[in-house]
C-alpha cells in the first residue's frame, strides 16, 4: 500500500493562535483512517488545513503532490472532498441542486448518472429531490452532505464528526454506509470523531489527537486495547 495522503510536521491555526503543532499522519489508499480526539483537540482544524481552508505550515502531500499551498478549489479538483462539521448543505437549494453543485469541478457528461446512483444509495434523498435542503432532518442532511461530496468523484473523503447531533440509530446507519463506500468503491476516508466506539468499528488506522498533538497511533485493534485510550475514550 502507498500513502494517498501524507501529512508531515503540519501546523495550522487561526490568526495568531496555533491549534495544530507539527502533526504527522498518513492515509493509505483504500483505508479508513480515524482521528480520535476530544472537543478542542484540533480535529476540525486538521480537516480545514487539508482542504486548504486555513493558513498552514509543514507538508501535505496528496498522491505524491504537495498541496500545502493549493487553494480549496484546486484541492477538490485533485480528488479530496470534505463533509464539513455541521453538514454545510446549501439550505436554500433543492436536494438535487446540492448534488449538482457537488459536481462543480467535473466536466464530464455523467453527472446525471451519478445523481441517479446516489439516489439509489439514499432513497430518502430521491423522495425529497425538489425540496429545499434546509427542510431535511439532521440525518437526511448528513446523507446529503456525503452524497454531495461524493459527486466530485473523490479519491479521499474527509468526514468531520458525522455523528454530531444525530440519534444513535442514525449514526450507526451512517457509519455502516461509510464502511460500505470504503469496501465497495475503494474510497479512502479520513474521519475525525469523538465517538470512539463507532469509529473504531470501521477504522483501519487510528490516531489520537490531544491539544494539537498526535499522542498515539496504530491499527484499530492496537488502539482499542490500549489502556490509556480505553480509559479516556471508551469509558472502560
Amino acid at each position, binding site marked *: 500500500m502507498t500513502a494517498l495522503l501524507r501529512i508531515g510536521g503540519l501546523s495550522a491555526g487561526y490568526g495568531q493562535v496555533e491549534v495544530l503543532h507539527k502533526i504527522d499522519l498518513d492515509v493509505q489508499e483504500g483505508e479508513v483512517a480515524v482521528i480520535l480526539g476530544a472537543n478542542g483537540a484540533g480535529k476540525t482544524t486538521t480537516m480545514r488545513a487539508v482542504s486548504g481552508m486555513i493558513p498552514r505550515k509543514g507538508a501535505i502531500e496528496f498522491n505524491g503532490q504537495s498541496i500545502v499551498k493549493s487553494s*480549496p478549489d484546486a484541492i477538490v479538483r485533485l480528488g479530496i472532498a470534505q463533509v464539513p462539521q455541521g453538514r454545510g448543505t446549501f*439550505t436554500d437549494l433543492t436536494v438535487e441542486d446540492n448534488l449538482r453543485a457537488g459536481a462543480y469541478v467535473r466536466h464530464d457528461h455523467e453527472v446525471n448518472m451519478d445523481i441517479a446512483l446516489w439516489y439509489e444509495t439514499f432513497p430518502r434523498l430521491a423522495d425529497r429531490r425538489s425540496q429545499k435542503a434546509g427542510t431535511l432532518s439532521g440525518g437526511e442532511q448528513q446523507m446529503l452532505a456525503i452524497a454531495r461530496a461524493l459527486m466530485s468523484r473523490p479519491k479521499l473523503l474527509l468526514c468531520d464528526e458525522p455523528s454530531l*447531533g444525530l440519534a444513535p440509530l442514525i449514526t450507526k446507519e451512517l457509519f455502516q454506509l461509510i464502511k460500505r463506500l470504503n469496501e465497495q468503491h475503494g474510497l479512502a476516508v479520513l474521519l475525525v470523531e469523538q465517538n470512539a466506539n463507532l469509529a473504531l468499528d470501521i477504522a483501519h488506522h487510528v490516531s489520537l489527537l490531544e491539544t494539537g498533538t498526535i499522542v498515539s497511533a496504530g491499527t484499530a485493534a492496537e488502539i482499542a486495547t490500549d489502556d490509556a485510550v480505553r480509559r479516556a475514550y471508551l469509558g472502560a
Partner: protein
Amino acid sequence: MQHFVQYVLDGLSIGSVYALVALGLVVVYRGTGHINFAQGEMALFSTLGAWWLHDKGLPLLLAIAVAAALAFVGGALIEVGLMRPAEKRSAFAPVVIAIGLFQGLNSLSGLLFPKAGQGLPFPSLFPNKPKDFWKQFGVVVRIERVGVFVVVLVITALLFALFQKTKIGLAMRTVANNPASAKLIGVPTGKILMFSWALAAVIGAIGGALKAGIDTNVSIGSMFSVFLLSSAAATLGGLDSPGGAVIGGLSLGVIESLVGNYPERWPGSDWIGIETRTAVAFLIILVVLLVRPAGLFGSVKVERV
C-alpha cells in the same frame, strides 16, 4: 378607471429603471451580504461614458453596448482591486469602501464631464416624440414606456435563466447560500464574486441608459434618487431575491405614480402629491417590512437541526 390604468402604465416605466438598478444590488448582495452604495454612481459613470461615445459619433445602441462592456470590466476590477482587499481587513470595510466609491465616482464624473452638472442631452433608445403612442380604450400607451418595460422583462428572464439553468448560476447560488461550503465543493468563490460585480455593473449601466433616455438627459445628481428608490425596492422585494427586486421596483414606480397623480381626486388628501410621493412610498415599504422583515420574496431561513 382610464386614469388609473394610465398612472399604472406611467409608473411601470420608471419602476422598470428601479427594478434594474435593484437587480444589480441584489446580484452583489447575494454574493457579499452588502448593499453596494456605489451602484447608482457606477450606473451614472457608465451612462456618461455612453453619452461620450455617442457624442463622438457611435450609434446610440452601440455606444450603450460598449459602455456596458466597459462596465463589466470596471465592475470586476472594483471587486478585485477594492472590495476583496477590504473584505480581508474587516467585515464592515467593504461598506465604507462602497460609500467612498460612490463619492469618488460622483466627483470623477463631474471632473471628466463638467457640463453634466446641468445635464447633457441623452436620446431615448425608443421612439419618444409626442406622436409616438398608441391609444386604446382612452388609455395612452407611449411606445417608449413599453420599450423600457420590455427591456427589463427580457433582462429579468435572462438573469433567471443564468441563475437556474447554468453552472455559473448554480455556483453563484452556492456562494450566496454558504460561502464556506461553496469553497469545499471547489467553487472558486473569488472569481464568482468578481463575476457578480461585473454583472451588477452591466445591469446598472443598462438601467442608467434607460433612465437617461426617459429624462432625455443625464446629469450628475440624477442617479442618486434612483439608487435610493432602488435600494428601497430591493429591500421591499427581499434583498436576496431577483424576482423580488423586479416586483419591488415596479411596485414602487406604480405607487409613486399613483400617489403623485391622484390627490386631487381624493377629498382631504391634498397633503400628498408630487413632493411627498417618495415619502409615501417609503412609508408603505416601512409597513411591509414591519410585517415581513425579509421583504416580500426574501428567503426566511428555514433550518431543521
